């Protein structure tokens, strides 16, 4: 039986300061995060490797070790909502806390946008007049440089990786029809820049391999990074690098919801073989077909459109949910998945309220109509970029949302709460609540541990090897009862 799908996303945000000479994105990212995080900054990230057989509920003394990031002074913090906010390469990156449902993930992914927006406001208030940063939730600068939005899913270690590769690759190649965030032109080195006016995906141009470990060059459709941040005997963390950053809530919901369902079906050996003849070429072809009608070739010779391949997955999923995994969230995933595939077949442009690539395309079309612009007009390139601005007064997605022109799935109140509070049904609850209540006594923390300094000779590590333990139900009462971290450690060990 498939295991529950714990989900998280990591987003590298684009950062720029138009008109500022000698702009240093690494430093600015660090300042941005430090400004927001304030006092939280002194909790450092724990890079300590842990032994695989350690008891998930015990704790033990550890040695202090200074991590590399601290040496160069770049911000890297854990927030009270259980998220990690840090500098990665030359970008501010936000990793959501672990979420136990697709809807919860949407709320926390959006909370990340708000945290970047709020960071920007505080940063501007602290900087001299006229110094202005731009932050974009996208994946490309339009000049051949990409930065990632990664998804993470908890997967059963017993499932052969070859099965994941076989059954997930055709899904990833074709899910772009609803996960794409849209992009003007092409950036692939092998393609002529102006040959295609618009494509579904920001990221497809940057993928050159089927399977591999790389994330910055020769990027693979299936990434093999094996770093479970959990009990490695039981779990894999599937690290997905092939997706786009979505602003539309329906697109994010479908991206992670359908992928989680497909992974469950892989674990339960529920899928037919839909292997493609040439996945990398198909990834590029699907992205370049905004009519969603071109056929790609399967390994067995069949020809199908991306939407037809998605229908194959959908039909199996409908049976799977009915027979194996019924419940309101899965039913909503199916309902929206079916609506979107139906819409894509009838008229892709009808989905402008649900999908980023369509919403953006419609905006570009409206500008072209009104102002008589050529596809090469720089104003259209600006719209392509500014669609992704995280500031709600400037970002064009946000202007569409405020005008009621895109469909919302969650409320602003839920998002605001998620800026401050962790999900209650994963270990992020324990992490977030400890950071909120005992930050002065936390020496370091990571996805699967918290190291307390309670004034004893040795630091005390609490391992969290089970992503679905440390929930409010498990530890809420202990956290409420403990007046200080020493008492909490005693309660945990008793």
């Amino acid at each position, binding site marked *: 039986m498939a295991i529950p799908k714990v989900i998280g996303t990591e987003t*590298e945000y*684009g*950062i*720029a300061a*138009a*008109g500022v000479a000698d702009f240093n*994105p690494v430093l600015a990212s660090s300042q941005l995060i430090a400004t927001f995080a304030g006092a939280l900054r002194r909790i450092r990230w724990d890079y300590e490797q842990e032994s695989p057989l350690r008891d998930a509920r015990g704790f033990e003394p550890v040695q202090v070790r200074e991590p590399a990031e601290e040496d160069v002074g770049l911000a890297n913090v854990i927030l009270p909502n259980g998220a990690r906010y840090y500098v*990665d*390469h*030359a*970008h501010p990156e936000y990793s959501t806390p672990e979420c136990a449902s697709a809807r919860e993930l949407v709320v926390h992914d959006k909370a990340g946008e708000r945290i970047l927006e709020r960071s920007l406001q505080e940063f501007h208030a602290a900087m001299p007049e006229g110094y202005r940063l*731009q932050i974009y939730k996208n994946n*490309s*600068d*339009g*000049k051949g*440089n*990409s*930065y*990632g939005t*990664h998804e993470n899913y908890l997967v059963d270690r017993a499932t052969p990786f070859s099965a994941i590769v076989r059954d997930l690759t055709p899904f990833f190649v074709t899910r772009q029809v609803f996960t794409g965030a849209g992009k003007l032109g092409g950036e692939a080195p092998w393609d002529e820049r102006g040959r295609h006016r618009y494509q579904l995906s920001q990221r497809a141009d940057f993928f050159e391999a089927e399977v591999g470990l790389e*994330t*910055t060059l020769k990027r693979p459709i299936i990434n093999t990074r094996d770093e479970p941040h959990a009990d490695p005997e039981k779990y894999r963390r599937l690290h997905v*690098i092939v997706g786009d950053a979505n602003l539309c809530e329906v697109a994010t919901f479908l991206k992670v919801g359908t992928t989680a369902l497909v992974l469950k079906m892989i674990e339960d050996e529920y899928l037919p073989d839909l292997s493609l003849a040439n996945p990398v070429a198909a990834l590029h072809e699907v992205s370049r077909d905004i009519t969603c009608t071109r056929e790609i070739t399967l390994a067995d010779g069949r020809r199908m459109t991306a939407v037809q391949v998605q*229908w194959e997955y959908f*039909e199996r999923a*409908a*049976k799977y949910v*009915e027979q194996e995994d019924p419940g309101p969230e899965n039913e909503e995933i199916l309902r929206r998945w*079916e609506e979107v595939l*139906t819409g894509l*077949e*009838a*008229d892709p*442009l009808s989905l402008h309220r649900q999908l980023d690539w369509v919403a953006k395309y*419609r*905006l570009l*079309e*409206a*500008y072209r*109509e*009104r102002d008589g612009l050529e596809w090469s007009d*720089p*104003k259209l*390139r*600006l*719209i392509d*970029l*500014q669609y992704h601005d995280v500031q709600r*007064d*400037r970002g*064009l997605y946000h*202007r*569409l949302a405020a*005008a009621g*022109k895109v469909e919302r799935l969650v409320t602003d109140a839920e998002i605001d709460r998620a800026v401050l509070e962790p999900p209650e049904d994963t270990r992020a609850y324990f992490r977030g609540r400890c950071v909120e209540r005992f930050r002065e006594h936390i020496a370091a923390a990571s996805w699967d541990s918290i190291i307390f300094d309670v004034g004893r000779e040795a630091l005390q590590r609490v391992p969290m090897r089970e992503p679905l333990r440390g929930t409010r139900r498990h530890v809420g009462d202990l956290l409420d009862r403990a007046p200080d971290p020493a008492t909490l450690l005693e309660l945990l060990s008793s």
Partner: protein
Amino acid sequence: MPKEQEQKRIQRREHGAGAGEDAGQVRASERAEKLKEEMDEILDEIDAVLEENAEEFVKSYVQKGGQ
């Protein structure tokens, strides 16, 4: 999935694939009209927040070192 729902979906799929070229052209001009109607107001709003000097702005946006 219930049979009825499945049939409905197959019908919709066939309908979508069968739309002729003429219908497509009519749809396109209708769409342009509708687009103008629905988007004019929001475009005015967006005009006020678009970054100035689009060409220079877009040219200066370069992101090195991403995953």
